[in-house]
Structure formats: structure tokens, C-alpha cells
């Protein structure tokens, strides 16, 4: 049976819950903190109303607001062109932030010091080594281009944020299973920590990699070194889909979990392949929503689900199949 996705807000059980949304009666989880008269939550083991009542960290007794993510200045220590318009950046962050960025689906917001707040953009974490964080930035929009084009090397890092992968609990909780990891183009950087987490839990990872729009596969060696089986193809659309269909159809190669790291079109393709093969396997997918504030406030990442809920993807977990139009 397909397991149920319990966590509906990624910030629950983090130092950032209850958040500003609870302060304004817009909590995505607790019915009381949404202005409803009685309890009606998708229980995940913690009562947000209670957290709000008791946690002194909130400073509610001191009249302070909910805790905020801190933006810290850092210096880019490595900047390497790895594909067209695509750069690997490395910078150091504090101990606490580095530890938090090791979580599945973690990401940060980056901007140049001195730029207005609205220049910050989200970047998924590819590697955490001690306090050094590696990310990959494709310089295609005004915000990312501005950061890449500046020669100064200073950067403001805001984090940690957690909702980079929809279906994150499946990745964290599966043990001793077989996982099919499909990564194309800019889906490769987040695929690396996902594979690391899966392998650490005794799973077998079969990776299907494609160069995507950026035109290069650059995580194959890292994945092999971790112990994953790697299949690199020229194009998911042309050759990858056939491989995928064959794996899903055959009982011996059928995975327990599918992880799709890449653009939404790739996610749709994977779902179509699963439907064609007549299988219903849990699927985790990278979160490609347009995130602007990351705090559930601005609404840029709001999407409508198949069951007519409007959810803000910077915080809310859902099964990606709920977002298929």
C-alpha cells in the first residue's frame, strides 16, 4: 500500500514553527491558528497551538514576533563554470546553518550585500562539507545573473529553508529499498544530497542522469563514488523514457520509491511512465515553484492542487501528483 504523506508543513518541529503565519491566524496546519473554532489538523505528532503557548523562544511573553531566519554575510571561495551559464559556488556558513543545510530538500536564499531584499533567490544545496556549502546557480534571470556577474565575492546567505523536495518524508524514512533517482539538467545538484541520504539508510540507488537544458551531466562521478548505479543518457525524452518504462514494467527492477529531480515537465513524464506501466509507486519530486519570500507570506509559490486546495509550496508538502494539471 502506498504510504501516506503525514507532514503537511515542512517547518513543523523546526525552530521556525510556529511562524509568522500563526501570528496572523494563517497557519497552514493548525485549524485554531487559522481561525477555526475546533481542532482539525492532519496530526503529525505535535500540537502547534501548544508550541505557541509554551515555547519561550517565541518571545510571546516579551511581545516579540516569531523567530526569523538570519541572513549572514559570507564570501564565495570557489566559483567554477560547470556548464553554459551555470556556476558552482562554494561559500562558508556558521555551524548551526551548516548542520541544518544537511537536511533533505534544504535550500538558501542568496543575494549581493547592498542589493534590495527582492533580489534574493532560492538555491538548493548540493554539498555540505564542514562549514562549506556548495550550490549550483544557473545565471538566467535578473537575480541570479546579478550575483554571478558581480566580481566582489561577497554574498548574503539566508536560511535554512527546507521544502526543496516534495515528498521529503519518503526520502528520509525509506530503508533498505530500491530507489530510482532521475535527474536532468539543474535537477542534478539537489539529487546529490538526496542520493547521499538514501544510501546512508541502506538503500540501493539507481540513477538515471540526463544533461537537460544546461547540456552537461556533472554528478555521475560523485554518485558512483557514493555507491549508486549510474546510467547517463543523452536525453530523457529520447532514450531515458524507454529505460524508465522497462524498469517500471519489470518486477525485478521496479523501485520502491521514485525520485525525480528536474523541471516539472520531467516530473510529469515520470508520472506518465508510471501510469503507462500500471504502477503506483511513491514519488518525490524537486520543488520548482517560484519562491520569492520563502516564508509563506508573499504568495508567489501558491499552486492549486487537484483537490482544490491552494497551497504555498515554500512550506507545504504535498504529493507531486496532486499538482498535475
Amino acid at each position, binding site marked *: *500500500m*502506498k*504510504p*501516506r504523506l503525514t507532514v503537511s508543513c515542512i517547518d513543523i518541529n523546526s525552530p521556525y514553527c510556529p511562524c509568522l503565519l500563526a501570528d496572523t491566524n494563517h497557519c497552514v496546519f*493548525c*485549524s*485554531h491558528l487559522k481561525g477555526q*473554532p*475546533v*481542532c*482539525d*489538523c*492532519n*496530526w503529525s*505528532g505535535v*500540537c*502547534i*497551538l*501548544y508550541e505557541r*503557548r509554551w515555547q519561550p523562544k517565541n518571545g510571546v511573553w516579551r511581545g516579540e514576533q516569531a523567530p526569523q531566519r538570519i541572513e549572514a554575510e559570507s564570501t564565495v571561495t570557489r566559483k567554477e563554470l560547470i556548464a553554459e551559464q551555470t556556476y558552482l559556488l562554494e561559500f562558508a556558513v556558521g555551524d548551526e546553518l551548516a548542520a541544518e543545510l544537511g537536511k533533505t530538500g534544504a535550500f538558501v536564499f542568496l543575494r549581493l550585500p547592498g542589493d534590495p531584499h527582492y533580489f534574493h533567490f532560492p538555491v538548493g544545496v548540493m554539498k555540505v562539507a564542514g562549514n562549506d556549502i556548495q550550490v549550483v546557480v544557473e545565471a538566467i534571470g535578473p537575480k541570479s545573473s546579478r550575483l554571478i556577474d558581480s566580481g566582489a565575492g561577497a554574498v548574503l546567505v539566508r536560511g535554512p529553508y527546507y521544502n526543496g523536495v516534495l515528498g521529503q518524508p519518503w526520502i528520509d524514512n525509506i530503508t533498505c529499498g530500491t530507489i530510482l533517482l532521475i535527474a536532468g539538467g539543474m535537477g542534478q545538484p539537489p539529487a546529490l544530497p538526496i542520493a547521499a541520504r538514501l544510501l546512508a539508510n541502506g538503500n540501493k540507488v539507481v540513477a538515471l542522469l540526463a544533461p537537460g537544458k544546461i547540456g552537461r551531466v556533472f554528478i555521475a562521478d560523485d554518485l558512483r563514488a557514493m555507491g549508486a548505479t549510474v546510467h547517463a543518457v543523452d536525453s530523457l525524452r529520447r532514450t531515458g523514457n524507454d529505460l524508465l518504462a522497462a524498469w517500471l514494467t519489470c518486477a525485478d527492477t521496479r523501485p520502491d520509491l521514485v525520485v525525480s529531480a528536474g523541471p516539472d515537465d520531467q516530473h510529469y513524464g515520470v508520472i506518465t511512465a508510471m501510469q503507462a506501466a500500471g504502477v503506483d509507486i511513491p514519488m518525490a519530486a524537486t520543488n520548482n515553484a517560484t519562491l520569492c519570500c520563502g516564508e509563506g507570506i508573499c504568495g508567489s509559490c501558491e499552486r492549486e492542487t487537484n483537490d482544490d486546495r491552494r497551497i504555498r509550496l515554500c512550506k507545504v508538502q504535498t504529493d507531486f501528483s496532486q499538482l498535475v494539471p
Partner: protein
Amino acid sequence: MVRVVVAGGGWSGCAAALAAAKAGAQVLLLERTDMLLGTGLVGGIYRNNGRFTAAEEAAAMGGGDLFVAMDANAKHRGISFPGHNHASLYDVSAMEPLVRKVLTNYGITVRTQARVVDVLKYGRKIQALVVDNGEVVKGDVFVDATGTSGPMGNCLKYGNGCAMCILRCPSFGPRVSVTARSQVKEIMGLKADGSYGAMSGSCKLNKDSLSVEIRDKLEREGAVVLPMPEHLVRSACLGRKACSQYAIPEYAANVVLLDTGHAKLMTSFFPLEDLRTIPGLENARYEDPYAGGVGNSIRYLGIAPCGNNLKVDTVDNLFCGGEKAGIFVGHTEAIVTGLLTGHNAVRHCLDMPYLELPRTVASGDIIAFVHDQMATKDGLRLRYTFSGSVYFERMKAIGLYSTDRGEISDRVAKAGLADIYSQCLV
């Protein structure tokens, strides 16, 4: 084969499952925690005042099994304490396994740690319940016996917070109302001050923490009444209680302890520091982990709108029992409504007319009376029980209160209800 799925394994759910099984259905009982009986795990008081009549009516109707189990497990019989006569007290620590045995003997499948979280509904019919592990449980007809108390968010908002009561919401997850999940708007009980809910009416002390004299007297006589010291008399807090049969001046002027295995303290909560100023209770402590010095669970948040046959309005195959069916207090009331709802669930599947208990028996009169009262704002502020307050007064006034077994069974027979719950319909 008629498949009945009962959500909630409190006294009412157990009674519903029992009645459905007796009527010939295949019954699955889903319980959220690891034990049956719900708040009945800390109950204990039955056959007091009009509850005697109700228990005997249930027996005459062929649904007395659970009362037989209680009687077999009674620590005290026929005791009196302020406002209450001929009460029996069952041993709360030994009751659950016995009830489980009764149910399994009737072929009922009991599944614990199976919390219902959602409903799959098509049109006006429920197709299946969803359990919190994602499992879909299909059935022909469903009983909502999920209760109305807790979870801790509600207890925090409408009470003094989670007192770590027997509901154990943090460990097993909160109750989820089948009725609410079926898109039926629920009714909320009110406190005297007009806010939602009511606080459960008794808490439990560890018997070993009482003085030897009090403990011995409690075990010998079943009840101990200690005069409340002058500085602790606070009659103002009585209006908040769920159990209006104990919201009488005697309970403000006295500390009433009953021996149900625990030392049941007949007040919602009592600050420990104050309690320990009472002679004999100097070292008292509440039963672990219960925070009886702080508060108690809040109930009557989410009552299903239903007819006197206990079918939930606007859903064709959903029935309800216990507190879900009205502002009923106590497990005798839960069992009486549970039996009817389980029985009617089977009738639904067989296209039989639903049973509605006539007002010539107390069990029928209380259901009709409570539903009438709940249509009024003032009625929503009251609680209804065979054992006291408005309904017991009514029982006495209209001659329904009786302790004569023969008279009660005659009444049941005259209404055409003799052994009705023990007849196999399928």
C-alpha cells in the same frame, strides 16, 4: 453479509459493535488508542439514580451484556453518596480486558491503534473510512462513536490545557470526527458562560497516597465524604463541569471520593496544594501522568446532528452513538445510545424501518428529550444524564424512574421491545 464499521472503541462504540453483531452483522471496531472503553477507563459509576432504570431497560431489550460484565467486575454495589443512591462502582483497572473478551466472543474484530482520519464518500453514502496508516476500510454502514472530547488544542482553547488525561491524544493522535469528515456541520455544547464545550467532571487520585483511614474507609464503603475546609469552598467553578449531576452544592461543600480502583475525586480538577490542606489528603497525588491539579478534558465539541433513530442527518449510511449523538453524560448513556445505533446500522443494510425507542421507556425519552432541548440555545448549556440534573428530575416527574426490575421489563415488553437487541436480523 452486512459489514458494519464502528469508529471509536469507547463504551458507545463497544455497545454499537455488540448490538450490530447480535443483529447478525460482520463487525469491525476501529479504536485510536491501544485500549477500548475510552473515558470509561476512568469511569466506574453506574446504576446510580435513573441509570439503574436505564441499565435494566437495556437488559430487558436483550442488550445487557456490558452491564453484566460491569456487575461481574463491580467493587461496590448499592452505595450512596451525596445526591446519588444505589450506585455500583466497577473496577476501572480490570474492566477493559473483560469488555474486549465479550466483544471477541461475539465475533467482533477489534483493531486498536487504528485511528480513523478520513472518509471516502460518494454522494450521500460513505464508501470507506481511511485509517491513519493510509489503509482504506470499506463497509456497508458506519457508526461514528468518536466522541466529542479533546484533542489538546481544544482543551487548551476552551479549558486549562492538556491534563494528560486518559484520551492520550499526544501519543495516539487526536480523534477525528467521521461526521465532520463527511461534511456534516456539527453542533457544539456550551458552558454556562456561553463559551464552547464543558470540562470533564471528575479526576483520579492515587489511592496509596491517601491516609490509611481514608483508604480503608474507601475500600470498605466505596465512598468517602470529607467536609471542604472553609477556605476552599468555591461554588463558582461548578458551572464549568460536564457532569451537572455533580454540580450541586453538596459537591462544593464536600470533597467526595469514590473507590473505582482509583480514588475518583468528584470535581473536574483541584489544585494539589489546596487539596493537600484537607486532613487525610496531606500526601495526595494524582494518578500518573494525569495533571488533575490543573485541568481536565473538554467535551461536547462536535456533536452530530441526528434523528431519534441516531442516523446522522444528510448521510445515508452513518449512525452515531454516545456523546456524538447528543449532550449525554456517562457511560450508561453511551451504552444505551450505542446499542440503538448499532442495531439501526444493521437495519439500514436490510432496508428495514429504523428502530426509534418510544418515550414510554427512559432510554427513548432521554434521546427525544435531549434532541428537543438541543434545538434551543439554553438547552445547549445543559447536560443530560439518567443520574441527575434536569433529566433525572424529569424521569421522576413523569414516572419513568424505577428500581423495580419487574416493572421495568414489563414496560419494555409493553413497548414491544423485549429482547429486540438479541434477535438476529440478517
